[in-house]
């Protein structure tokens, strides 16, 4: 009995001495384990898998870099890559568009809060629903786009059936929610803009564009950075809209890497897991360039604190 209580004190004092070192690890353990298991390890597994030929059921066969070799000659891969670049470039339009709407709404009139939240609406809705709606807009037989084109004397067009327009058409659908997102970021940023600097700028004769460019935009840097991060990630993750609106068509011309990978690994093109993994690796490496840049910026900021 006495022995046990001595043991107990010794234990509790050991715990007492070390608890500041041990507590963080106890708190981190479940989160880290989950994350390693479902996110970090699978990344390495995909790298490994890209060196195999595997149908997802039987035994995987080691084939070295031949998946990458095949990728090198695969035209569909280049179409997807090209579309990814188009996505990256055009999607960035959400940032100035969001800023524009934010500036427009940055007033204090009655009901403006309701307006702000209604403008944000598109972001809350699933991309699946957004995709469906825009598909109806673009529909060659009854879509409103052709009604509008016809009313101004332009010939009708089949946006989603036209190889040259399909990607742009899908991106426009994607820009709708993304612009709403950037708008909210900028509205929050504008709240923090220093009125004294505006006044000082005004005294220096800054107006309109000059005021925007030299006084307002520099103060919105944090908002712009986040808008940039979420837009880049969003552009490279684009999948839902393509899947819902065109399923990669016509003739694969609206594929992006993320969609092509899915197609190769899980859909009618057969269960080519290894080949799919090699596409995913390429997409991952592209994303990694951006992730590294974001982390580097964060690291600098942490150091500066």
């Amino acid at each position, binding site marked *: 009995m006495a022995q046990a209580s001595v043991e107990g004190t010794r234990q509790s004092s050991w715990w007492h001495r070390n608890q500041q070192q041990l507590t963080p690890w106890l708190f981190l353990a479940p989160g880290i384990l989950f994350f390693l298991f479902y996110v970090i390890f699978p990344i390495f597994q995909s790298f490994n*898998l890209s060196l195999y030929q595997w149908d997802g059921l039987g035994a995987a066969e080691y084939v070295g870099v031949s998946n990458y070799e095949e990728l090198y000659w695969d035209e569909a891969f280049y179409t997807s890559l090209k579309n990814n670049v188009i996505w990256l470039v055009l999607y960035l339009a959400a940032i100035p568009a969001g800023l524009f709407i934010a500036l427009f709404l940055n007033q204090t009139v009655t009901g403006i809060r309701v307006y702000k939240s209604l403008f944000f609406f598109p972001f809350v809705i699933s991309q699946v629903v957004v995709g469906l709606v825009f598909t109806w807009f673009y529909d060659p037989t009854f879509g409103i786009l052709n009604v509008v084109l016809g009313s101004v004397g332009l010939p009708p067009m089949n946006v989603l059936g036209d190889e040259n327009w399909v990607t742009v058409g899908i991106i426009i659908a994607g820009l709708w929610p993304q612009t709403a997102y950037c708008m909210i970021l900028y509205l929050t940023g504008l709240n923090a803009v220093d009125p004294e600097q505006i006044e000082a700028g005004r005294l220096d004769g800054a107006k309109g564009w000059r005021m925007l460019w030299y006084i307002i935009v520099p103060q919105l840097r944090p908002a712009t950075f986040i808008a940039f991060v979420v837009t880049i990630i969003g552009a490279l993750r684009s999948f839902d809209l393509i899947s819902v609106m065109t399923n990669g068509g016509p003739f694969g011309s609206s594929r992006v890497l993320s969609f092509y990978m899915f197609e190769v690994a899980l859909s009618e093109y057969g269960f080519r897991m290894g080949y799919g993994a090699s596409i995913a690796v390429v997409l991952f490496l592209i994303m990694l360039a951006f992730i590294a840049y974001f982390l580097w910026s964060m690291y600098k900021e942490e150091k500066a604190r």
Partner: protein
Amino acid sequence: MFPTPIERSPRAWQITYQSLLPLALILWLLPLIAVAIFSVKPDADFVNANYWGWPSSFEGFTNYALVFTGSDMPQYLLNSFKITIPTVIGAVALSCMTGFALGVYKFKSNIWIFFMFVAGNFVPFQILMVPVRDLTLQMGLYNTITGLVLFHVAFQTGFCTLFMRNFIRALPFELIEAARVEGIAEWRIFWFVVLPLMKPAIAALSVLIFTFIWNDYFWAVVLTQGVESQPVTAGITSFNAQYRAAYHLMSAGSLVAALPPVAMFFLMQRHFIAGLTLGAVK
């Protein structure tokens, strides 16, 4: 109109602005307004090519009733709730702990563990797809709600940790130090000092994750199939295949599917925006 407050502008401009607002809003929400009108139209309107005109009769009740009684929509909705709610609870609970550990304690690998969560959260889903699907199959959780929830919790922990850690960092550290001087155990500091202060962050993350998971489509398609386990986003697409030309039903179904996150947003607007704009103001 910027950066001059509208009250200081000429009267004529104020009136122009006030009338521009609703106009801009209608244009901006035109896609949604169109779906809303589609959803209350009778089938006959689509047969007679009255697509974009006014409904010839109001069939809202019939259409929405049909979505609930004549389709699998109720099941899909139920699945979505069964997926989303446990995910929110799981991811928020895990990230309260990781965020506390990374935000309060100084130890060598702190920033690297933090960066692991941040980087992982930016990763393209496709690099995880095959291994995670295989993992889920091997655990016998393919095509189950549990399988989907476990993955979502793990993945969302990345974003949530980023959020929680930064939030805790901004709390007054003296509170924690004072508690330590009092000799309060570390876990009690977490539970009685830090956690109560985290309420706004927990609210913000909960609505945000709710929306993210509710709207997820990719993982729903990869990890589940069929009515018994798929969420409403995947349900809508099979609904689409089933009712290809029944635009009134499709629209009603889409709106029903979109409603929970929209309601969430309106109820918790302030928190929602606080969550999204994390770091946008410094």
